[in-house]
């Protein structure tokens, strides 16, 4: 039911574009082509698998497409952040100086739009360095030893724990984060995560449409590959997807992550229809292209490859081949 509605919405939004450019004959031809080539698709997928490998988030091509889709709305990027009140500074510039200032503002905006990384979840540390049974009754508290040598990267630092039972083990990721914050504090990061990141409080924030604030705080507080980070991001993206509030994150550095999350779970219909409604056709084309790159085994990717589709044809292909994504249990 939901798939049908989504499909209908998609085709409604896209029909305005298609009818303007293509006549019925062309459309019927594409339909015939689809029915002919549906069957042998499965047999050639084995060969295709060698050539088409699914792309990762960090690939240059993917980053390029995501940056283009994110857009550059200067008003939103340089939105006033809560800071101390300072009186405004006025400067007298010539035309060339004004152009230079605008150019600088553009590069500064690009820096602010640098996407935070999407990394696989970190595996728990379970390394035991030494087991000394003879130290069993030594103390009731653990001893945590941190190496505060200045020149080592934090990931390679030695943080070990001596338990009351005598085992000397490496500290877990949560202990590491806490102790690194004790000895090498980062701005605005707290030792215990603030109550904002609990489920109920997150819902309040989503109700007030403050998704970007949640995600920015999450970036400051947690490491990019920690479970908490992924959980908060997943909840935020689910809420945005459910209510169609894609425009909240547009032209911020968090948009790329949202797009990648939707593509990985194969639910780009809402975003596509939103983009087409706002007349961002080129962005929609790039989105479909990225989807085909990320899922080279999907129907739309295979057919696009066979037809050498580009531009608006990509949109047609994906509308016609869109399926309900497999239920993730």
């Amino acid at each position, binding site marked *: 039911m939901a798939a049908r509605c989504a499909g209908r919405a998609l085709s409604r939004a896209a029909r305005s574009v298609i009818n303007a450019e293509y006549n019925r004959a062309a459309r019927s031809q594409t339909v015939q082509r689809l029915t002919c080539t549906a069957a042998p698709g499965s047999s050639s997928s084995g060969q295709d698998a060698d050539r088409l490998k699914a792309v990762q988030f960090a690939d240059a091509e993917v980053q390029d497409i995501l940056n283009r889709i994110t857009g550059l709305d200067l008003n939103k990027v340089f939105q006033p952040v809560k800071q101390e009140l300072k009186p405004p500074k006025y400067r007298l510039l010539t035309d060339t100086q004004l152009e230079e200032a605008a150019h600088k503002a553009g590069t500064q905006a690009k820096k602010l739009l640098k996407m935070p990384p999407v990394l696989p979840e970190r595996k728990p540390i379970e390394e035991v360095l030494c087991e000394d049974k003879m*130290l069993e009754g*030594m103390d009731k508290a653990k*001893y*945590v*030893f941190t190496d*505060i*040598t200045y020149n080592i990267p934090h990931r390679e630092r030695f943080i*070990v724990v001596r338990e009351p039972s005598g085992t*000397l083990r490496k500290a877990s990721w949560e202990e590491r984060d806490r102790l690194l914050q004790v000895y090498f504090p980062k701005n605005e990061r707290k030792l215990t995560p603030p109550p904002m990141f609990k489920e109920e409080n997150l819902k309040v924030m989503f109700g007030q449409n403050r998704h970007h604030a949640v995600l920015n705080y999450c970036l400051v507080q947690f490491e990019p590959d920690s479970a908490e980070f992924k959980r908060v991001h997943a909840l935020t993206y689910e809420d945005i997807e459910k209510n169609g509030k894609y425009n909240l994150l547009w032209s911020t550095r968090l948009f790329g992550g949202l797009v990648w999350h939707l593509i990985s779970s194969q639910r780009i219909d809402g975003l596509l229809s939103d983009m087409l409604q706002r007349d961002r056709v080129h962005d929609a084309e790039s989105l479909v292209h990225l989807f085909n790159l990320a899922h080279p085994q999907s129907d739309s990717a295979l057919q696009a490859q066979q037809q050498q589709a580009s531009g608006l044809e990509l949109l047609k292909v994906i509308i016609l081949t869109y399926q309900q994504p497999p239920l993730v249990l």
Partner: protein
Amino acid sequence: MSVHGNCGSQDEIWADKVKKIKVVCEMKLKIDTKTRAMVHLSSLLLRKYHGGHVAIRLALGGATNRPFYRIVAAYNKRSRDGKYIEQLGSYDPLPNIYNEKLVSFNFDRIKYWMGCGAHPTKPVAKLLGLAGFFPLHPMTITEAERRIKSEAKTQKEEEEDEEEKQAEQ
């Protein structure tokens, strides 16, 4: 051996000693003492501080009923909390809300000072042993055993007291 005492001045005696020490170093330890960077050969060349050495020890700080130690490289004869050469870490003896006692070591600088001939004190040696940097200090093991024995003893006494009470009743 040249004749000492009345013949040579103190400076000449010292220069002589330094020359011999350098020769010994170069022969035994195979260090080129000229091209090496300035190393505090503390036990050998301290003219005003003869017989002293650098110690790595705990300097007490904090407040009433709330101790906090800094692990510090300081001259032996200096006061416990006085002027030190370098701070090498910290030790908080009271456990926090996660039942952890936080200890930090700057292992790079500790290695440097140990190489210059600094002596760690007993508590510092114990902590380094627990950390795995040194071998385990024998007193740590002895204290663990003593604690186990005393706990077993108190448990036995409690059990005997209970039996007596029950017997009375």
